């Protein structure tokens, strides 16, 4: 009846594991009680969970990412604490538990922090940047969100029921095969990946179609904001790379559950094919995480330098080059498999080449700042911190691209330092910049800048303290994923790294305080114009928060910096002569239902509860059928209502709130030479 699920699944075997389970379950109960206490269930369901509004879906994605960031970071702290003390002793974590922690940390950070964070920001902003009223497939968007949440749910519940994988976030066979890993851990990992991977693929397709089809008049490809460009590129990467992940995970699941032999030595299987397929997805994936952050940095750097983005075209071409090249380098993750010299040379050189377009971007951002009037807004500070730190990570990456050097460094803490050096500044800092930059667009008030700057300093100092020692430790020969060690020379460095992690913890606390303080004082930091930073791109033309339809009248664009151009030309903030009815998608409860069903499906497959798996699968098909037969999925916002909303918004704006554009007016030859570099 319950497959292999028995009372043994509850982690009574260790107090640390029990504590983790208690925190997870307790957290869940606390949230449940809080919502009940606030009587917010109905609002939560009708206004949020069932909403097909891309901005609300985006906000829910970001909330998911922030919650999972806390979970993933607790894992990191635990590992740092363990390694700080485990010289010639077992520390406080048994080996098997330590293995679960690094596996869940990596899995959570990549799939359930970075992916939802970037998807959320894209959801909130991209339709507004291209002058669209919605994404191409609003219902699919909601399904994607809940599939991602279902995957995250599987990882979370593995704390309380059963165990998580011990095979690392990459789960290489044969260790992740059924012979060496008969428990449920690897299955939890696999089904979390499969379920959320389907959601990500759908988001990717959704955004390709949105950007290709829904741009407003005049928004040619070469006038799209950089964030939209990076979104288009990563959506293409998602559409092509994620199927490889889904296939490889499904193959391993078949090996484990049905006794297939894709990756076993028996019957002609080959485990290196797993590494090959995983990294066909895996390398594009790192660019999927990083490119949107590059897009955010591009927007932020132009806005807060008060200049047009330098080298827009070169940034577009560099992004496209990175996107294509990212499909040609995957072997660098398993050089040590031992390919022949030709294979290694081709992939090694391709890897080094990919650094070139990235370097181009760094120069473009620096030239944008050159002679600009820089304003040190938290998002700008994160951008500058990124530029300095990311270059270090890039250099160590080029070093690892040399196969002979990689043979020495592979799977050492040098590698761990390298990829955190890319992902923390290159992805997370970008998302934090985006959070600070676009928060008013999503909620209508600004985030507190003081706490934003503080969070930045704790994050960056913590980052350097936590990861620079790991470069050194790598050279001293320390491998990654070590539960304890015998070399006393390593310990001082690991203690510094642990202090760094504590510093990052303070950074996270600062973000929490920032959110709290800003929410408390929201009345004094309201953004009435919809354009708090004198922004340049079209998302600042809508109200903050934007009306459900974003744009009452679909705008027409004449320039790269469309909204800047409108402000200069005096066409911004103009009421329309007449408004028209607007068709919007109705809310639908099927998204959350499909999410719940795929969670049940994953859970059932993990525990071999076949009837539940079959039931969940059939019900999911029924849901899809119901949706397909629903011909009344849209409703109309009448023109009068649109006029009312727009009137209320425009009525709030006084000319005192508007930005002074005189500095930006082109200066003619008669009135003196134009300031160099000014737009």
């Amino acid at each position: 009846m319950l497959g292999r699920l028995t009372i043994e699944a509850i982690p009574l075997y260790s107090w640390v594991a029990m504590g983790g389970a208690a925190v997870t379950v307790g957290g869940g109960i606390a949230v449940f009680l809080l919502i009940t206490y606030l009587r917010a269930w109905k609002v939560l369901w009708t206004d949020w969970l069932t909403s097909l509004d891309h901005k609300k879906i985006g906000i829910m994605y970001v909330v998911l990412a922030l919650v999972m960031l806390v979970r993933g970071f607790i894992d990191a702290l635990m590992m740092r604490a363990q390694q700080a003390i485990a010289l010639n002793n077992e520390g406080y974590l048994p080996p098997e538990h330590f293995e679960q922690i690094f596996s869940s940390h990596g899995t959570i950070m990549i799939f359930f922090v970075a992916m939802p964070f970037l998807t959320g920001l894209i959801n909130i902003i991209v339709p507004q940047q291209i002058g669209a009223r919605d994404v191409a497939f609003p219902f699919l968007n909601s399904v994607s969100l809940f599939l991602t949440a279902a995957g995250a749910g599987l990882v979370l519940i593995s704390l309380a029921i059963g165990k998580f994988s011990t095979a690392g976030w990459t789960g290489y066979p044969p260790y992740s095969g059924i012979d060496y890993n008969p428990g449920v851990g690897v299955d939890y990992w696999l089904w979390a990946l499969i379920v959320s991977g389907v959601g990500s693929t759908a988001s990717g397709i959704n955004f390709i179609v949105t950007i290709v089809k829904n741009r407003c008049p005049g928004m040619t490809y070469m006038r799209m904001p950089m964030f939209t460009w990076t979104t288009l590129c990563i959506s293409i990467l998602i559409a092509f790379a994620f199927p490889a992940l889904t296939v490889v995970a499904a193959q391993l699941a078949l090996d484990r559950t049905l006794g297939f032999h894709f990756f076993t030595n028996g019957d002609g299987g080959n485990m290196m094919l797993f590494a090959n397929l995983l990294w066909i997805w895996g390398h594009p994936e790192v660019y999927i995480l990083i490119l949107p952050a590059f897009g955010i940095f591009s927007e932020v750097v132009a806005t807060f330098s008060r200049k047009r983005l330098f080298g827009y075209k070169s940034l577009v071409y560099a992004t496209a080059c990175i996107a294509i090249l990212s499909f040609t380098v995957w072997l660098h993750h398993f050089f040590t498999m031992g390919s022949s010299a030709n294979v290694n040379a081709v992939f090694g050189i391709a890897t080094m080449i990919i650094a070139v377009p990235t370097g181009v971007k760094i120069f473009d951002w620096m030239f944008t700042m050159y002679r600009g009037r820089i304003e040190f807004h938290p998002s700008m500070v994160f951008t500058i911190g990124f530029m300095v730190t990311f270059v270090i990570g890039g250099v160590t990456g080029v070093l690892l691209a040399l196969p002979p050097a990689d043979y020495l460094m592979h799977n050492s803490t040098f590698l761990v330092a390298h990829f955190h050096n890319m992902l923390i500044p290159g992805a997370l800092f970008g998302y934090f910049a985006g959070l600070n930059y676009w928060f008013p667009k999503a909620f209508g008030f600004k985030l507190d800048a003081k706490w934003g700057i503080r969070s930045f300093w704790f994050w960056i100092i913590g980052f350097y303290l936590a990861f620079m020692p790991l470069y050194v430790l790598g050279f001293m020969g320390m491998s990654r994923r070590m539960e304890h060690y015998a070399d006393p020379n390593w310990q001082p460095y690991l203690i510094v790294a642990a202090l760094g992690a504590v510093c990052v913890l303070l950074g996270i606390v600062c973000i929490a305080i920032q959110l709290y303080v800003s929410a408390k004082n929201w009345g004094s930091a309201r953004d009435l114009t919809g354009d708090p930073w004198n922004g340049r791109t079209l998302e600042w033309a809508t109200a903050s928060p934007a009306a459900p339809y974003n744009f009452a009248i679909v705008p027409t664009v004449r320039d790269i910096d469309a909204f800047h151009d409108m402000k200069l030309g005096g066409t911004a903030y103009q009421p329309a002569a007449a408004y028209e009815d607007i068709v919007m998608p109705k809310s639908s409860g099927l998204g959350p239902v499909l999410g719940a069903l795929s969670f049940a499906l994953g859970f059932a497959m993990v525990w071999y509860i076949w009837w539940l798996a079959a039931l969940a699968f059939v019900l999911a098909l029924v849901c899809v059928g119901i949706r397909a037969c629903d011909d009344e999925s849209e409703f109309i916002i009448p023109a009068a209502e649109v006029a009312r909303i727009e009137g209320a918004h425009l009525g709030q704006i006084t000319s005192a709130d508007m930005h002074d554009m005189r500095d930006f007016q082109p200066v003619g030859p008669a009135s003196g030479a134009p300031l160099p570099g000014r737009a």
Partner: protein
Amino acid sequence: MHHSAERSLSTYLTGFALAVVLTAIPFALVWGGLLTGPAVYVVIAVAAVIQVVVHLVFFLHMNFKSTPGENLFFLGFAAVLICIMVGGSLWIMMDLHHRMM
């Protein structure tokens, strides 16, 4: 109107028939043991590639005359990426096989 609906029904049916045949061939070869060795792989791969073309032409109605250039561009792009992924994988795994012998 009526005429074109009929024609598209017949294209769908032709496409469907071709797809069934192209699926049946590999299954028949393997189940019936009609072919062995590397030749099977080649036949399966070729049948799969033709199948892709059948889907594009008969179900998605792609051709060089009426399909917008943008779509053809994306299709070409997809083809390049798939060649990189499949070709690269074959190269890597064959090379490995060779070195393990």
